[in-house]
C-alpha cells in the first residue's frame, strides 16, 4: 500500500508526518510505504491509497481517488494511531 504525506514544500511538515506515520504503521503491523511530498506532486498522484496531511491543505486536495486523513498534532502518535487504524484496519 502506498501512503503519501503532503505539505506545501515537501521538506518539513510532510517529513515529520512520514516519520511518525511509519512508526505507527509498524506498530499496527500494516505494510505500507510512506512518501513525503509537496502539494503539486500530490495533486498529480493517482496511486496513493491514503493521503496524510493537515486540515488546511486537505481543503486544497479534493477530487483525488485517495482517502484523505487529516492530522492536527504531528507529534501525537495516539492521534495518528487512532486515525490510521480506523481507516486501514
Amino acid at each position, binding site marked *: 500500500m502506498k501512503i503519501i504525506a503532503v*505539505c506545501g*514544500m515537501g521538506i518539513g*511538515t510532510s517529513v*515529520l508526518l512520514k516519520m511518525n506515520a511509519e512508526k505507527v504503521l509498524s506498530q499496527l503491523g500494516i505494510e505500507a510505504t510512506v512518501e513525503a511530498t*509537496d502539494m503539486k506532486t500530490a495533486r498529480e498522484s493517482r496511486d496513493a491509497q491514503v493521503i496524510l496531511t493537515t486540515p488546511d491543505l486537505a481543503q486544497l486536495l479534493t477530487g483525488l481517488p485517495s482517502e484523505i486523513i487529516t492530522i492536527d498534532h504531528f*507529534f501525537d502518535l495516539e492521534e495518528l494511531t487512532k486515525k490510521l487504524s480506523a481507516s486501514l484496519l
Partner: protein
Amino acid sequence: MSFAKLAEAFGEDSIRVLAVALDREHAVELSGDLLVSSGRVTPDYVTQMVDVLDTHGPYFVVAPGIALAHAKPSEVVLSTGLSLVTLADPVVFGHESNDPVRLVIGLCAVDHDSHIEMLAELSALLSDEASVNSLLNAVDTEHIRNLF
C-alpha cells in the same frame, strides 16, 4: 537524551528567547532572520518563508503552540540548519486547532533528504512534553542549548 544533529543544526546566533512578534508574518520573519544571522540562508529565504504562509496558510503549525516555518531547498539556502524563537506573547496563526503559537522553529535544507535525521531528532524532542515546556519557559538561549 542527547541530540547530536540538533546541536549541530543550531548555529551560533540561531536561537532567541521571548521575542515580541506583532503578527504571524513577523513571527515567521523572526525565525528566518535567525537563519540569516547564523549564516544558513540569504535574506531572500526569509521572504520565501513568508510567501509560503501567504500562499498555503498556517498548515506548518504542526502541534499545539508550535510552528515549523520554512521554504523549499534552493540556491538561497547556504547550508541545512534550524533556528528557534520563543515568543513573549502567543501569536494567532489562524490554525484551527493548534493556535496560538508560542514557539517558531525555522528550517532550511539544501535538498529533500539530507536533513531527515535532524528532523527525527527534532520530532523526538518536540514529542516530549517536558522538553517543550523547558523550551517555552527558557529565559536564555543556554537553557535551550542544554536540551540538545
